[in-house]
């Protein structure tokens, strides 16, 4: 076909391959159609979390667009993407943390273990006990290390302790001791704090505080751990400990982690979801696939550090 008989569209298509692949517009931005197959991640085993057509609006801002994702249990799922892409918003939807934002409007469905969490009558305390959250900045309570871990179980009534319980003869100090040790061991910090459980948690290093916060989240025996940039405030050694820990935890828990650090996602996750600007999920697949041969050109550019 000669150049003169081509339509503009055909000429574009000839240069860029199939119409569904990225085509560069005059502004230099890529205008790529997201294919459903790029986000239709197939895996063996059970899905712990299923979202369907999840949309989030902050006022007029459409922060998340039609996110349908199945997150397998007992594995690490990384959410990556540039600032403002909606990955943290998505994470917060998974235990209804966005409920606190009055301007936020959420549409669509999120199921945890087959149960819709956005329906009336869902017990939020119970939900957040099963779906724990660890934040970017370690935020231990200004209390003892022991109290930080046992706070949740006591609040939820899993252990009884205090003056009244002592008087009534149902003090469960031994149970508390076991629970605290178990959680601290799971969070790989027990060896560093076993001699000073009554010290104030704020005296720990940043990395230790973060592992303490993970222990605190584990103490309520959750199924899912959500982590929002859990290592970004830490040095490389503390980061490495957290990464080791996340891997070990994924044997028993479903971990969903938001990270700005693509290398971290590559190192620790089993599957990776890439959100790009505009609140869209562009690609979701095995981490091997995403980092070795992504389908989307925009994803390839993003993970290669080529922007614009």
């Amino acid at each position, binding site marked *: 076909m000669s150049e003169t008989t081509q339509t503009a569209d055909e000429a574009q298509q000839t240069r860029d391959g199939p119409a569904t692949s990225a085509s560069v517009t005059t502004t230099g931005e890529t205008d790529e159609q997201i294919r459903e197959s790029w986000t239709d991640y197939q895996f063996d085993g059970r899905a712990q979390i299923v979202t369907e057509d999840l949309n989030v609006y902050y006022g007029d801002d459409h922060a998340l667009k039609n996110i349908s994702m199945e997150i397998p249990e007992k594995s690490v799922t990384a959410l990556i993407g540039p600032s403002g892409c909606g990955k943290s918003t998505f994470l917060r939807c998974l235990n209804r943390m966005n409920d606190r934002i009055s301007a936020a409007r959420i549409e669509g469905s999120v199921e945890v273990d087959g149960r819709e969490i956005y329906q009336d009558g869902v017990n939020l305390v119970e939900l957040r006990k099963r779906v724990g959250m660890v934040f970017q900045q370690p935020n231990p309570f200004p209390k003892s290390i022991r109290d930080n871990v046992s706070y949740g179980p006591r609040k939820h009534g899993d252990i009884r302790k205090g003056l009244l319980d002592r008087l009534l003869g149902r003090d469960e100090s031994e149970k508390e001791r076991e629970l605290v040790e178990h959680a601290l061991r799971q969070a790989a910090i027990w060896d560093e704090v076993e001699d000073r459980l009554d010290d104030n948690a704020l005296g720990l290093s940043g990395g230790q505080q973060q592992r303490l916060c993970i222990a605190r989240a584990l103490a309520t025996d959750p199924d899912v751990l959500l982590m929002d940039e859990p290592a970004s405030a830490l040095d490389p050694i503390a980061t490495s400990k957290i990464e*080791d820990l*996340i*891997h*070990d935890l994924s044997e028993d828990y479903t971990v969903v982690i938001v990270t700005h650090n693509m*290398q971290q996602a590559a*190192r620790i996750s089993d599957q990776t979801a890439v959100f790009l600007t505009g609140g869209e999920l562009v690609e979701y697949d095995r*981490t*091997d696939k995403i980092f070795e041969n992504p389908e989307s050109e925009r994803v390839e550019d993003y993970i290669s550090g080529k922007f614009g």
Partner: protein
Amino acid sequence: MTREQYQNRLEDLRADVLYMSELVGNRLSRALDALSQKDEAMAREVTDGDDVINRQYLELEGECVNLIARQQPVAGDLRFITASFKILTDLERIGDLATNLAAYALEADREIFSDVDTQQIGAATLAMLDAAMEAYEAGDVDLCWAVARRDDEVDEMCESASDAVVRGLITSGELIEGEIETKLPEVRRLLLTVRDLERVGDHAVNVAARTLYMVESNDELLE
């Protein structure tokens, strides 16, 4: 994948490369036996088994790519993975050469130029491969240089073997009609055997060169 797991994966890669080298060395040794003993069954075993090596090669190459893509290795780890990546290719090629040698064993039916000792050359190249892999396993720099020196000897052995064949052909005088045709494939096979063994030596040197780079970031043997 984590740092501890990552270290385990690096150790596994090292063990797998060593295991592949054992398989390859074993095949080379059997090909040489098949040549000397005219053992058709053994030769066929070698020619038929090359796909095992190829599969392992592709699998380990994939592991190297995956480690680079997901673990962002730097410094010594990066040199180890990239050196292993290249060494795998050399091992796979030695596997191919073993297949060639076994194929010659299948075709050859009589001994010519009995003074040309391909077994001796074969044993020398096999020893080079073993030494190169030992250097890789132990990070032994001296052994890397020793392998390179040994290759000069092997090259000389190969050269004098080829010379002996050519000299023999020239001095044997004119061959009678018909004899040329029957002798031609035999001579060609013998020369190819010598050439392939020489190449095995070259690949063993490559392994040593990559190992030297891996251990000391020294690329002198690569030149």
